């Protein structure tokens, strides 16, 4: 019987969706290796332990809680030292992190402290018999690698959205844990977190992404894209590099080889030519819609549904039609 470990990410005191994904994956790995316990690590300011119940509902047997007023923000050195200490003494078969902004920072630190390899940004992880294998997109998603991780525990970081959080009623028993490094000794300090507009879905988490390119002509015309995203209700806004380089949109919204990678249910590309570097960030979307006035634009080669036409005419019509469909008419 083998136990597994999961890092349960929080930000601003809130539990992140990726935390539930990590716990779900840890649960699956524990079940596949004989049905051991899942131990989730939760770090934050006092009050953070309130999330233990949610983690239990997703399969955590034990929730290791580090709570300290100085840990309201992610404190990489404290989180890494504590995760490494717990994993070192825990006899786990696997430890699951998220390949989010925070998890991608944390997981390699922990791996190096433990002297263990890390399979990062995996889209699938599997235990069959003694072998733990992962799938990881390489070459900007143009090739998929299957990797075997020999070391135990196997350390993995999971791409956001790769695993569907599922229920797995467990106790989520809180076990207080002291930080392995006193917060006062941390050298790297997050002094400020500037949150984007409230209520906006993040690109990694949104089931629908509506993106705009240079075909929109000017920053203010992104209103069309935003209105379409609002009509869907569960959509985030993305952009091409041409647009972020021109400062029409923040770099954080850039999709592609040098930006974010998304795999939403639906990707709507408006006024986007479909350069290879852009496709690298969205080609794994389940359904792709393209609206472009040039019928030869490369984006149409990957679009399940293409409309040749002027974005300024098609997008408002689509926004109206989506609103109507949502109203049930």
């Amino acid at each position: 019987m083998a136990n597994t470990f999961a890092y349960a990410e929080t930000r601003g005191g809130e539990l992140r969706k990726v935390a539930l994904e990590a716990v779900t994956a840890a649960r699956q790995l524990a079940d596949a290796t004989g049905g051991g316990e899942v131990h989730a690590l939760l770090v934050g300011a006092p009050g953070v332990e309130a999330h233990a119940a949610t983690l239990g509902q997703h399969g955590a047997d034990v929730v290791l809680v580090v709570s300290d007023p100085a840990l309201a923000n992610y404190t990489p050195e404290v989180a890494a030292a504590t995760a490494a200490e717990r994993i070192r003494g825990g006899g786990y078969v696997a430890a699951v992190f998220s390949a989010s902004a925070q998890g991608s920072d944390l997981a390699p630190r922990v791996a190096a402290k433990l002297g263990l390899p890390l399979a990062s940004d995996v889209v699938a992880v599997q235990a069959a018999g003694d072998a733990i294998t992962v799938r990881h997109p390489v070459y900007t998603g143009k090739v998929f690698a299957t990797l075997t991780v020999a070391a135990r525990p196997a350390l993995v970081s999971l791409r956001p959205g790769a695993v569907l959080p599922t229920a797995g009623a467990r106790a989520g028993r809180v076990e207080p844990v002291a930080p392995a490094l006193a917060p006062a000794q941390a050298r790297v300090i997050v002094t400020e977190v500037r949150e984007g507009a409230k209520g906006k879905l993040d690109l990694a988490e949104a089931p629908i992404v509506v993106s705009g390119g240079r075909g929109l002509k000017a920053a203010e015309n992104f209103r069309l894209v935003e209105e379409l995203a609002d009509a869907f209700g569960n959509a985030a806004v993305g952009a091409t590099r041409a647009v972020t380089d021109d400062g029409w949109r923040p770099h954080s919204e850039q999709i592609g080889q040098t930006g974010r990678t998304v795999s939403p249910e639906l990707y709507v590309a408006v006024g986007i030519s479909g350069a290879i570097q852009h496709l690298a960030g969205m080609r794994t979307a389940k359904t792709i819609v393209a609206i472009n006035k040039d019928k030869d634009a490369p984006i149409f080669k990957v679009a399940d549904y293409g409309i040749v036409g002027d974005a300024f005419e098609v997008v408002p019509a689509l926004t109206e039609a989506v609103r109507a469909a949502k109203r049930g008419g």
Partner: protein
Amino acid sequence: MKIAVCIKRVPDMEQRFRIAGSGTSVDETGLKYTMSDFDEWAVEAALQLNEKHGGGEITVVSLGPDAVQETIRKALAMGADRGVQLKTEAVPVDGLAIARALAAELRDGGYDLILFGKLAVDTSSGVTGAMVAELLDLPCVTAVAKLDVENGRGRAERALEGGVEVVEFPLPAVVTVDQGLVAQARYPALKGIMAAKKKPLEVKPAQLGQPGVTVTKMELPPERAPGRIIGEGAAAVPELVRLLQEEAKVL
């Protein structure tokens, strides 16, 4: 400042990839190679930091076969001062193995700042910089999109999902570079290319251990069904909505 930048030679991503006969790597025949995007930005960031702070020395380090000397020469042509090749015929996929070899080289270099790319575009791992920092017990900030260094301290900004984090840290430190830190990398001028030929490039054996991760298979992703144009202009919208509801079931 004394700055080191770790740079990786990677295939140009615009090419079409084929899987090698072994089934565990891409077929390298005929591939063109370049410096990984993020590493180019890291070199540019180092140059700009030293231009701003009036001088210093920039060392670039690349682990790989002799072909990486070309990548090193490019960085030297951009303005870096000296290069180190950590020689190995095969570059492992295991980031920790690479990190150990890089850390062994960087440990006693007396650098104020060690820069990495956020990720290498071939492995897309994004682990090496933070691992080297841990191995050297240096403060580390990853995926940095804004960086100020003053009086032995750094202040960096990194993108979060729907937010920005401001981080402060003491030097010496490790920083991994995200897009946006520099507008773009400079092109080497002819003068730089000529000068680069005379700059020192040291070759040492890479101290690689046993890799802990092995590739058991590489495959191309399933081809997307060929694209389909369903109509023109706003007149095609009702059909699109029908397809989104009935076929794709996303609405």
